[in-house]
């Protein structure tokens, strides 16, 4: 039988592309190190059916022209069996068609762009690694509408796909924004940043009481500071998960001479959503296990425990799970097939179910809503953690019944 590339009796080679350098790299450049740390841990335990996992990560500088070349290098030079955890919406759009055409599994893509996942007949081999921005925004939007029915809600958003998807989700949830008044976009991301003072001022002037932030975490930190400067104290900040990483928030502020206690105080009360436990939840069994593995196996330059690292761990965990599920006889077809039929059973630290089926390749269709406490840990709002779930279209938001299975003692997934 003609074996697929990248699989031998002793090895599985996986590929990944991400911005490791350049304007878009901060934060994301840690995901590959986290994944490799988990794979190394698995390898130290004997690998998957005796096969060691090798992860080849290529830097595409968030430049799509380069992504095409690095993909070709991964496919033809490194002979990868599958791609896992590639980062970036714009860059991934440049290769997604080719990967699918070649039948290469394209697992757990770190992009919340729903268009990649909602039409599996177009992209049969691509599966999400993040919940889509639309789903998250819908869930948060519904919460805002229910919790602050009489308050004026506004949004500060990155004027790119991420921001647009977010607005789409919030609008679906029934929130209404007026450009120039309650909706303030700003330039960010790969083009650099020009500050957000005027945007916040605009929201302040429009009398916005609940501010939604759809941006990366470093911007959230700046937004919090800027608002303080403007004497702007909205009743509530609601931050999309991409932008609410406590570690990044505190690091940025720390390097601005704001001590952790103080920054934690600034973070306290901010509402955000997550599909996973907060990295700060030391008592969570997954978090504890992953953090231990990270400490021991991560050889990256910056292995600070944060959302990005946790996300890397989750993806790696799921990857191993899927590989084990597919069985000894590992082929691309079998893997995809397994993902389509059994993929929905994939677990990780995530508290929400993944939505994989032959109809959709969306990952986390569920998010729980939390509020940062005084120790910079996201704690569920209300008495207990409730995970909501919905789709990227107009479907309703419902309460999920998903129960995360316990992690095994050796932190290795068991074949489903």
């Amino acid at each position, binding site marked *: 039988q003609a074996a697929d590339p990248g699989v031998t009796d002793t090895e599985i080679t996986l590929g990944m592309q991400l911005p*490791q*350098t*350049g*304007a878009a*790299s*901060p*934060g994301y*450049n840690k995901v590959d190190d986290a994944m490799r740390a988990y794979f190394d841990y698995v390898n130290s335990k004997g690998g998957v059916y005796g096969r060691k996992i090798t992860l080849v990560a290529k830097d595409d500088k968030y430049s799509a022209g380069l992504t095409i070349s690095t993909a070709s290098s991964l496919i033809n030079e490194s002979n990868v069996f599958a791609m896992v955890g590639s980062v970036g919406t714009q860059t991934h759009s440049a290769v997604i068609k080719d990967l699918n055409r070649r039948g290469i599994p394209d697992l757990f893509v770190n992009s919340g762009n729903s268009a990649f996942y909602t039409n599996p007949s177009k992209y049969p081999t691509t599966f999400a690694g993040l919940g889509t921005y639309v789903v998250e925004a819908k869930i948060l939007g519904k919460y805002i509408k229910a919790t602050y029915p009489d308050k004026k809600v506004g949004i500060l958003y990155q*004027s790119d796909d991420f921001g647009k998807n977010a607005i789409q989700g919030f609008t679906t949830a029934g929130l209404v924004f007026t*450009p*120039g008044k309650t909706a*303030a*976009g*700003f*330039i960010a991301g790969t*083009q*650099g*940043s*020009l*500050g957000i*003072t*005027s*945007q916040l*001022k*605009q929201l302040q*002037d429009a009398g916005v009481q609940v501010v939604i932030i759809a941006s990366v975490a*470093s911007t959230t*930190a*700046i937004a919090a*500071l*800027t608002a*303080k*400067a*403007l*004497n*702007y104290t909205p009743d509530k900040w609601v931050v999309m998960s991409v932008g609410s990483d406590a570690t*990044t928030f505190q*690091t*940025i*502020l*720390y*390097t*601005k*001479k*704001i001590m952790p206690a103080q920054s934690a105080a600034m973070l306290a009360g901010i509402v955000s959503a997550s599909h996973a436990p907060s990295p700060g939840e030391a008592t969570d069994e997954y978090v504890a296990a992953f953090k231990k593995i990270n400490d021991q196996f991560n050889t990256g*330059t*910056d292995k600070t425990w944060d959302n990005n690292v946790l996300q890397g761990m989750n993806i790696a965990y799921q990857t191993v799970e899927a590989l084990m599920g597919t069985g000894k006889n590992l082929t691309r077809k079998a893997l995809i097939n397994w993902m389509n039929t059994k993929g929905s059973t994939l677990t990780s630290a995530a508290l929400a179910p993944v939505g994989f089926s032959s109809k959709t390749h969306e990952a986390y269709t569920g998010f729980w809503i939390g509020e940062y406490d005084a120790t910079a840990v996201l704690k569920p709002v209300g008495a207990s953690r409730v995970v909501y779930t919905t789709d990227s279209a107009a479907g309703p938001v419902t309460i999920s019944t998903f129960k995360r299975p316990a992690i095994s003692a050796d932190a290795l997934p068991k074949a489903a």
Partner: protein
Amino acid sequence: MQTFLTALFTGTSHGAIYALVALGLVLVWRGAGLINFAQMGQAMFSAYIASTIINHHINYWWAFIVAIIAGGALGGAIDVLVIRPLKKKSGSSILSSPSMRDAIPVIASLGILGILQSAAGMIWAGEERGFPAPVSTLGLSIGKRAMPFTRFDIFVIVLIWLILIATTLLLNKTSVGLAMRASALNMEVARLSGIRTRSIRTLGWILSGSLASVAGLMVAPATNVSPNSLDLLMIIGFTACVIGGLNSLWGSVTGAFILGLTISFINIYDAPGDVFLGIFAILIAVMIFRPSGLFAKGKARNV
């Protein structure tokens, strides 16, 4: 009205920062005859240095001073290591065309930018850092109303006025300034006038490097520090010079404020997505009617 004021104020305070960048660029242009694209790379580099110092709990102002020295040293090093040897090459046939003589050093500066950015990446792992402001960034209140102006904004605006006046005086009223301009324009004639052109040029580079560092330190609180975080600022500062006219300090500062206001008004009254289109439109409009910038003097006699 409130919105208008907001746009006006934020535009002005951003314009001040762009003006700092523009001033640094003009200083090298006047002192060495080239657009130094590495400038914000130098600024980024010294901001990282400053940030490292600050993270060791050392007083901001020490870091400030070290960064200014580091920026100056980088500027000086660029001159000594790259620009001087480059000028010696003027015998090469490609450099016999005046347009190439202008273009080639610019390209060298792009190379230097690449070197600085990747070096910073290697040294500091390309991590993104915040950066403190020297004075409070808390908003000032007039009456009950918080203005979109912070103490820091006022600090920056005062600083740029001081620097503007100082550099204007330096360039136009002092003998060092005359020596700098002469060395930039025609090294040989300057040397034959007894001017120590090499040192003078290096001095220009050092000054502009320090100035760039100041700009970097003033900008970093808003943009954070990472190898590429100042790229956009560099482009906007350069555009400001082009709009105002590279040969005029006041012109480039005016250009910077024009851009600050444009960006702010488009942000507020239109959409952020249109900011760059707006900049482009303004630039094109100026270039059509004043090809050498708003404040350019009449065309030089060329025959």
